[in-house]
């Protein structure tokens, strides 16, 4: 192998890395040693060898194919930059390994409990009185000015998120009813093979995966920014997989950009990969895209799904109905968060909501901080509250709607007065 070729090969590796592929020196060394086994002269073999060694995600294959074609077709001097532009635009959003600029504001303290100690409170919060904060907790996101929404973001980052656990099929030593032969026998050796006490195993518990599918269409615009903060905070706080998607006319997965530890940078990256902000709403189509592309990959293991939308759908209602039913069948709990539920005169009459309601387990408001606190409570106690009676019949539907509507009583806050926690009243 000549030096020029090796040089080009390493350059190719660098180009791929810049395009967002996960290339490390070890991989490049592997590729070099693989070249001993194939005929480099045969371009397709070289292509396949590089492909199998350098790519390990299906999503990256098209990007690799194009970069390979562009890179090895002609010498670098005669590259047409315009050809690379297209590739660079489609560059993969970087994962958490990115180097981030210094933090401007404290990122959500994921390890801190919600009741952060007083020293950690920001200046803004210290200056706020208790009743101010209470007011803020109940103020509709859509009606907040810039300062208020900043303060709410701070408060949001302190919410304590936890999702109920499920029994996995993995066992560990414990008080279960399954006999642990290995330990029993080991123990019995101390008494010359006489079993006096059985050792047991019990199922290991793990938190349920969470999937958030958020509507970012025009009608949701007033809520979008704060809701993204909320999703970011939730993802940062939870240890289990949290998958996040947004849609207006089409579905975009934003899980990767949200992994970045710097919130501003994360949201900026989300902004870059989503290109239908504040567009129309096609919930049915978007859910279908989710069910097709992602359902099987992320819905296993008793996942909890949150859909955040006002239900103003301009798409096909039959489709929405069908896709909701499918989604419902494939997850453990389907929760629909609707910011409009916070309005006193809202009734879930839009066609979209009507089609979706029969398949929803919980229909909850998401318009102020108090409603998020309530959500946090519910997610942490999914097992305790039995699955709500649902909307299979006309009457059931009415019930679940009323359940949603009754929550409005919390939205007119007693002015600075004492109140029971929302969760106490809701359960």
């Amino acid at each position: 192998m000549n030096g020029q070729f090796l040089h080009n090969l390493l350059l190719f590796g660098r180009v791929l890395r810049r395009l967002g592929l996960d290339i490390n020196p070890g991989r490049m060394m592997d590729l070099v040693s693989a070249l001993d086994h194939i005929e480099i002269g045969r371009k397709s073999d070289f292509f396949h060898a590089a492909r199998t060694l350098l790519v390990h995600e299906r999503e990256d294959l098209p990007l690799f194919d194009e970069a390979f074609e562009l890179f090895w077709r002609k010498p670098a001097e005669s590259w047409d930059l315009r050809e690379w532009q297209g590739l660079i635009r489609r560059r993969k959003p970087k994962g958490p390994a990115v180097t981030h600029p210094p933090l401007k504001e404290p990122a959500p303290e994921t390890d801190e409990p919600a009741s952060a100690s007083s020293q950690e409170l920001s200046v803004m919060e210290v200056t706020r009185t208790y009743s101010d904060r209470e007011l803020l907790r109940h103020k509709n996101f859509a009606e907040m000015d810039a300062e208020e929404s900043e303060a709410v973001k701070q408060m949001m980052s302190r919410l304590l998120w936890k999702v109920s656990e499920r029994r996995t099929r993995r066992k560990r030593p414990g008080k279960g009813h399954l006999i642990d032969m290995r330990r029993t026998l080991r123990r019995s050796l101390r008494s010359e093979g006489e079993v006096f006490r059985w050792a047991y195993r019990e199922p290991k518990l793990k938190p349920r995966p969470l999937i958030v599918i958020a509507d970012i269409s025009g009608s949701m615009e007033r809520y979008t920014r704060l809701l993204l903060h909320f999703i970011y905070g939730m993802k940062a706080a939870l240890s289990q997989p949290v998958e996040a998607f947004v849609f207006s006319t089409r579905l975009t997965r934003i899980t990767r950009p949200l992994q970045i530890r710097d919130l501003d940078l994360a949201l900026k990256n989300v902004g870059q990969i989503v290109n239908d902000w504040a567009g129309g709403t096609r919930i049915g189509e978007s859910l279908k895209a989710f069910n097709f592309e992602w359902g099987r990959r992320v819905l296993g293991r008793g996942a909890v799904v949150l859909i955040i939308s006002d239900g103003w759908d301009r798409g096909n209602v039959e489709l929405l109905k069908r896709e909701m039913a499918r989604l419902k069948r494939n997850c453990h709990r389907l929760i629909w968060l609707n910011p409009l539920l916070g309005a006193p005169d809202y009734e879930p009459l839009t066609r979209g909501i009507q089609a979706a309601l029969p398949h929803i387990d919980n229909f909850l408001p998401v318009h102020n901080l108090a409603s998020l606190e309530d959500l946090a409570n519910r997610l942490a106690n999914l097992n305790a509250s039995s699955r709500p009676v649902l909307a299979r019949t006309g009457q059931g539907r009415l019930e679940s709607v009323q359940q949603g509507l009754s929550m409005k009583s919390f939205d007119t806050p007693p002015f600075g007065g004492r109140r029971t926690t929302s969760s106490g009243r809701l359960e």
Partner: protein
Amino acid sequence: MEFTSIDELQSALRERNYIAERGLGTSLYLALKLGRPLFLEGEAGVGKTEVAKILADLLDTDLIRLQCYEGLDVHHAVYEWNYTRQMMHIRLFEARGDKVSEAELFGPEFLLRRPLLQAIEESRQKPAVLLIDEIDRSDEEFEAFLLEVLSDFQITIPEIGTIKTSNPPVVVITSNRTREVHDALKRRCLYYWIDYPSFEKELEIVQARLPQAPAKLARQITGFIQALREMDLYKLPGVAETLDWTTALVALDQTALDPVIVDETLGAVLKYQDDVEKVKGEQARLILERVKAGVD
């Protein structure tokens, strides 16, 4: 069997009726040459598991299969002690008035060897093919464990010691992508995505595997399946379905497709009720017309 070129490997695969794309051939060849695990992903029924079987046949060695599931643990993946025998042994000695030593009780004759241990046993003359099937069904705990085993091919059993092999197995890992497998594991492997085959490739597969199928029928079936894959279905039919369907139609003595038989046997191809309803009747007839016009 030692291969000296990708061409040689591919023709050996073909002799065994496995039609592989050049890319898959390259990945397999390099996996053998570099001694790296091969990570195969693809939709259900594109022949991922088959690759390992053929490979074992090619190398004339054992295929050791580990089917993954959630909660798969050391007891089922690596080794377990044969408790019943151990207890019998204790009782037997007791009856004779002897005492059993611990070393004896945890000796090799009481050890049940599970797939991972079998694959790296010292006594092996030839490297085995180790198929770790549907890794996406297992959980992170098992993945982490597997990563360890794959990095140095040794297993430690506290009672016996470390078991190591100089003949590490050829490892094939498959995934249906029902869950994202951790990057660290994928990074150790050669990666290949098995796509649905083209019309020509698929026809070749059908003819190689089911030579008894009439040529016309095989062409029509392949064309029909290819058309279905263009449709908006929940579960697209894989090559496995193509072969099943062909077998079914051959068993029914069909020499060509017609709308009635298609409707009656659609269950061999589509596995979701929604999909069957969508295709059955009118849609199937339309596809059939197009296919007949195209391939006959």
